[in-house]
């Protein structure tokens, strides 16, 4: 068996046992990246040298009889929203083109400490804003199942690279579905953990109260392996949960007898593609066959999810992205007419007071801000900054942001109520399978509706997983989503793993991934 066909669990076992060197495993995936990524564009940076060096070090460690980390020799692709001290971190934005952070994100540090091999940084929607990966400043990612289609987003590069076997596992981030939706459209398994389960330190913030890092892989078992390494308390992230990390991989095989899965009839309304609806209903049937009970439940406020999300997330984003102003790092507009500062006009802004305005320094400063941001950000990022700035402004705050927070509490309550009756909530990830590149990019509202089934998970702060449950007649993967109460990742992974023992959807590979004859 080729290393690129092996599961992550098998790869680390083989490396640990000496059946496979880390170098050989890494080379195999690097070779696939070289061969395939020209067509897919999943990577913004490939660290061939660094990856081979790390792999060689792992092999040397093993040879010397030193203890190996739990991910020893495992190639991992990391979304370009996570800071890496040895590779540029751009968030697929011109604003951060070439930016190299002075530190590793906590998750990256944990991967390195576990002896994983970081092969590169994956493409994404700019600043994680988007559901198609078309908002990358460095070109869209192409869905490995059909290169004319979108891989979903924003973690489209991470999803596509796993789907095309360019990496066995990848790290994504999910603010409103950015792990689960591309996982669904690319036919892989992606987990968005409970908010606070994985440290956000070093994840370039989009919407701080929603962002969560998670694993993307070919199976639940591989996701479990990854989560065990990246989850856990980080004193450097005040929102990270100080709770023990379970052995996620150890309880996967327990049968699903007695597990109650909620089904939301409203999910099957207008807009859901009939092929998707059929595959999702089939998945419910499979779960029933595996011993689970399916119970219809109501999520009364779910229809307000997208509206709520598109207030909360842009509001936070408008503030989180204020730092990209050209003054300190990242893109700065070339000085033009009037840009040069004039002497003696500046006043510093006192905390608690107003920044001074007017005068030569201020006008040239404001011009520098405006032009740097106008040039550095793409249209979708600008749109969301505008939305958020507007909704937080005096006179609109109560009508928009404050109201969104109220609805968010109602949605959270929906979940609490639902989890009184069921252990998991199942349903579609997306209303359709992968859409054509360019199909929705001219219609922001249609694009926002792509997030219909995923945003509520983030608003409630609970966990969710998506995995393939079938294919369209056209050969595109269809995703199924499970959501669970806070910290119920063991059940999410176990239910998915049980399903993946009954089905082989997750084993199917796109034609492009087939080895050349």
């Amino acid at each position, binding site marked *: 068996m080729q290393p690129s066909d092996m599961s992550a669990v098998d790869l680390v076992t083989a490396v640990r046992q000496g059946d496979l060197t880390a170098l050989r495993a890494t080379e195999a995936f690097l070779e696939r990246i070289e061969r395939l990524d020209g067509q897919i564009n999943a990577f913004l940076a490939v660290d061939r040298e660094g990856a081979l060096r790390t792999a060689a070090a792992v092999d040397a460690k093993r040879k010397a009889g030193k203890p190996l980390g739990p991910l020893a020799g495992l190639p991992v692709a990391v979304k370009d929203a996570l800071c890496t001290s040895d590779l540029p971190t751009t968030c697929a934005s011109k604003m951060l083109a070439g930016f190299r952070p002075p530190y590793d994100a906590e998750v990256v540090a944990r991967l390195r400490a576990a002896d994983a091999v970081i092969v590169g940084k994956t493409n994404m929607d700019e600043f994680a804003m988007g559901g198609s990966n078309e908002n990358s400043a460095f070109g869209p990612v192409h869905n490995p199942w059909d290169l004319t289609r979108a891989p979903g987003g924003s973690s489209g590069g991470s999803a596509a690279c796993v789907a095309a076997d360019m990496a066995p596992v990848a790290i994504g981030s999910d603010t409103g579905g950015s792990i689960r939706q591309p996982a669904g459209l690319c036919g892989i398994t992606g987990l968005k953990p409970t908010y606070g389960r994985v440290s956000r330190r070093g994840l370039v913030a989009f919407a701080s109260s929603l962002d969560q890092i998670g694993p993307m892989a070919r199976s639940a078992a591989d996701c479990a392996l990854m989560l065990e390494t990246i989850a856990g308390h980080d004193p450097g992230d005040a929102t990270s949960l100080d709770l023990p990390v379970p052995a996620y991989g150890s309880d996967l095989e327990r049968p699903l007898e007695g597990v109650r899965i909620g089904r939301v009839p409203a999910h099957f309304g207008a807009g859901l593609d009939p092929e998707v609806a059929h595959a999702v209903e089939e998945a419910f049937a499979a779960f029933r066959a595996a011993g689970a009970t399916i119970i219809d439940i109501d999520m009364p406020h779910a229809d307000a999810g997208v509206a709520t999300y598109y207030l909360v997330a842009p509001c936070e984003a408008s503030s989180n992205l204020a730092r990209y102003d050209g003054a300190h790092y990242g893109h700065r507009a070339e000085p033009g007419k009037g840009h040069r500062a004039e*002497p*003696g006009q500046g006043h510093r802004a006192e905390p*608690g007071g*107003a920044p001074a305005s007017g005068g030569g320094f201020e006008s040239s400063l404001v011009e520098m801000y405006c032009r740097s941001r106008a040039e550095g950000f793409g249209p979708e990022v600008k749109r969301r900054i505008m939305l958020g700035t507007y909704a937080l402004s005096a006179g609109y*705050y109560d009508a928009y942001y404050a109201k969104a927070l109220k609805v968010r509490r109602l949605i959270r309550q929906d979940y609490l109520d639902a989890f009184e009756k069921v252990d998991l909530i199942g349903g579609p990830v997306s209303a359709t399978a992968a859409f054509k590149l360019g199909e929705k990019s001219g219609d922001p509202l249609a694009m926002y509706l792509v997030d219909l089934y995923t945003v509520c998970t983030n608003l409630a702060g609970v966990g969710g997983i998506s995995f393939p449950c079938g294919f369209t007649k056209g050969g595109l993967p269809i995703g199924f989503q499970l959501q669970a109460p806070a910290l119920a990742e063991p059940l999410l992974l176990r239910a998915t793993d049980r399903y993946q023992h009954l089905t082989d959807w997750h084993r199917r590979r796109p034609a492009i991934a087939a080895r050349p004859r």
Partner: protein
Amino acid sequence: MTATPTAAAPFTTVIGLEVHVQLQTRTKLFCGCSTTFGAPPNTHVCPTCLGLPGSLPVMNRTAFELAVRAALALGCKIAPFTKWDRKNYFYPDLPKGYQISQFDLPFSSEGALEVVDPKGALSRNVRITRVHLEEDAGKSMHDEAAGTGDTRIDLNRAGTPLCEIVTEPDLRSPQEARAWLNELKLLLVYLGVSDCNMQEGSLRVDANVNLHIPCDGGRIAKTPIVEIKNMNSFRSVERALVYEVARQYEEWQATKAEMGKTPKQTRGWDDPAGVTRAQRHKEESSDYRYFPEPDLVPVAVSDEWLAATREAMGDPPSVLRQKLAATWKIPAYDADVLVNQGRELVAYFEDLAERVGEGKVASNWMQQDVLRTLNERGGSIDAFPVRPATVADIIGRVAKGDFDTSRAREIFAEVLGSGRTVDEVVASMGIAAVDDDELITLCRELLAENPRVVADVKGGKEQAAAGLIGQAKKKNPNVNPGKVRAMCLDLIRQM
């Protein structure tokens, strides 16, 4: 005291203050960088205070404790639950594009700090609206050289914890404002909350001022509120307010402009010129788009923790003044002078008073000798070379009659100057106790030389004996004046 319009000042001055104090923590409010002043630019920085992508804040618990201490001492209510907010604005010394502050749920509110003049001229209870915590911005330095126009940013200060204290408009004169600020500073220094060093920017004051002017028919006209900035000492606060009060009155007489009809004005204090100058009006009012900081969790404050904090913080100056006056039976004025010098000096005084056994004597020595020389020499009381045991020794010898107080002062000065012991100094100055035989001989000589005094005393004017003391000291500088007087009176009675 209430300030009412008088012939001298035909209006009431209304002043409110907004004070920012830098908390005395080793590290910044949301990261581990040092808060030490004066380091080379941009050396006390990390991803968090630089606002780099992906960086996150973590609250410094010590900063929160210090701020709570200040609020407790100001009699504020402490909120059981407080959260952080983002105040959004763009400026190069604010690297995140927002300041982490507290907006609608500050950790404390509704306190008061009284300022009392022990001589009774002034007493004012100034209400505190709120006290909240926030992070400081960095420093922008604009290169003023014509043609170059670079702006340099130093982010060492970015993220330093600041406590913002906002008063109600309860102050009624510039002098009161200054006195109140002195009291606030004393309190904060006592509690170890801040070093309140205005030169290093650890304490910054903005003042809001306007005038209430009685008009015909009993109506009160209120002049537009002006916020004064850029004051770098309490003296300049007072000067700026004096100037501004006069300016506003003049302006009112000329324009009759009242509050509400023009937007609030900000004026900067130009210290060398001694004037306030209007700062540019903003085109539109600022909208900081406050919203809850999602990177931080709210802070819950338990009653137990509050009680422990209260316990640990010690007496504020106002309480200490009363305690000192009562314990050592010293006048309120003395207690005020001592307490105003700081906690270390009070400790010195209490040590001395304990040894001497008499508060007033110890207090006199503190004020006349210790404080005076301390002020001349500079430095802290803890580094003052003459320790309470030595002063007590000198005072004890005066009580025993070894020498008088003026001699004692000379000895104190000599001990301080030479670093020798009291015994050494006494020996070197030839000061030896005068024995009774010597004293009788001396007194007899005196009486023989002053028949007039003898006659006066015999005639009932005992106070005439005072004239003998000076002469006695000329004969022997070591005599104890009290003993000379008593001995002479005795001898005259026996005549």
